[in-house]
């Protein structure tokens, strides 16, 4: 059986020098895969490249055995890939409900089932459905952002630092939600700074450094790897 997502030998960047130097990534259908690495390693860049937000100069991205290299975001969404950027990931003047509706813009038919599914996962969003997203706290906004992405019933959810700027309590909750989402059969690919916690819930992890793969292993093995620990887990 083919992988859900497979990226091979990616080279590319924001127009200047390549940031990605032959990055490889793979996500299986039911996995949580975490990308960790020092600042400037190209973690977010790799995610953006996979989702078609910046040009891949060389290399290939395959989704369910279909080449999607440099496809437009719209085509990614249609295929069932959802992406949550790290910052500015809500529509601030829209209500929570409208934010969610925008996530499903390309989906035809009644949205109520999709909305119910998101509200079940994030009951707080149901309470606040009429509130403007821009007026919510960082943690609530992150829920809106994830909820928006889940509205397409994705097979692959890509999260760029979902816990950035959150309190420890909210970080725990976010990781719990991610596990719940994954338990519904959604593959998760995420970039995380909270490497220890992220690797603890991950099936596999990648350690990127200067745009290329440094290590690839199961979450626990990476955590136990002294070289990885020394590099950035803070010893």
């Amino acid at each position: 059986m083919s992988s859900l997502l497979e990226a091979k030998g990616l080279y590319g960047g924001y127009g200047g020098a390549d940031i990605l130097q032959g990055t490889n990534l793979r996500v299986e259908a039911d996995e949580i895969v975490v990308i960790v690495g020092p600042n400037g390693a190209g973690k977010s860049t790799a995610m953006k490249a996979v989702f078609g937000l910046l040009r891949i100069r060389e290399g290939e991205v395959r989704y369910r055995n279909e080449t999607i290299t440099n496809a437009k975001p719209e085509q990614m969404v249609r295929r069932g890939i959802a992406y949550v950027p790290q910052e500015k990931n809500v529509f601030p003047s829209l209500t929570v409900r409208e934010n969610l509706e925008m996530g499903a813009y390309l989906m035809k038919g009644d949205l109520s089932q999709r909305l119910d599914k998101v509200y079940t996962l994030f009951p707080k969003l149901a309470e606040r459905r009429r509130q403007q997203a821009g007026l919510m706290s960082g943690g609530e906004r992150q829920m809106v952002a994830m909820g928006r992405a889940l509205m397409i019933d994705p097979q692959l959810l890509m999260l760029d630092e979902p816990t950035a700027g959150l309190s420890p309590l909210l970080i725990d909750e976010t990781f719990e939600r991610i596990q719940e989402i994954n338990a519904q059969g959604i593959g998760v690919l995420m970039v995380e700074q909270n490497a220890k916690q992220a690797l603890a819930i991950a099936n596999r992890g990648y350690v990127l450094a200067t745009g290329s793969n440094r290590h690839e292993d199961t979450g626990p093995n990476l955590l136990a790897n002294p070289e990885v620990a020394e590099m950035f887990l803070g010893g």
Partner: protein
Amino acid sequence: MTDILQLLIYGLVLGSVLTMGAIGVSMIFGILRFAHFAHGDFMTLGAYLGLSFISAFGLSSWWALPAAMVGMAVIAVFIDQVLYRRIRRTQPVILLIASFGMALILRSLVQLIWGSDNQTYTSGIQFPWQLDWLGGMRLKPDHLWIMLISLGLVAGVHLFLTRTRLGKAMRAMSDNMDLALISGIPAERVIMVTWVIGGALAGAAGVFLGIDTRLHPVMGWTTLLPVFAAAILGGIGRPYGAIAGGMIIGVSMEMSTLLIPAAYKPAVAFAIMVGMLILRPQGIFKGTV
């Protein structure tokens, strides 16, 4: 007191015209990130299209309104497709200069086709109602219609923005362009609808202006400054702000004639705009700049 009420009515009529223009300017800025300098000349062209329509079919003056709105919606989309779309991915300042060029082209076209003399929709004089219960204040039926139709159009825009999928997508794009693209919102389609609405409302503004006063080739260009002032006052990129801004600028301009000569009306709009840019540049409703 009657004077003030009378001026308030004139202000609300002018405010209606400005609002129609400012909603379009604000929406276009929100989605495409440039100040559309040809918007005043969209108003002019709309007014003249209406004139040709009613004289061709021998209709009464208000028939100019639907003709101008439909005509300008089509022309706005056409201009976007042939000019602005090609330079969409360049810097906003290039779009701004291009729209300035388009303004000059449209104005010259109007002069070429309709001449540079003043024209009117109807030659007769309309007798105002004398409202004795309001201290003998006078109200022209046309003025009442301008205010009522503006109200209807504003309500229509509101319903579109809050109730329809495309309208919400328009607000979403104005909020966060990148996230809109990531969500799969079709940008070109939203842009097209923005021009349809902006063009139609500019056409309405032109006809209102023509009915209120007269038609001449610079009628829209001279109205552009207060229209921009209204859009900036309300918070550019925020269509609701444009409504508030339009009314405030319109009423202020008319009220100012109590204190200063009427020729300074545009200066009042300019002063409010400058003051706003100094004190609260984001506008009444937080704009997208």
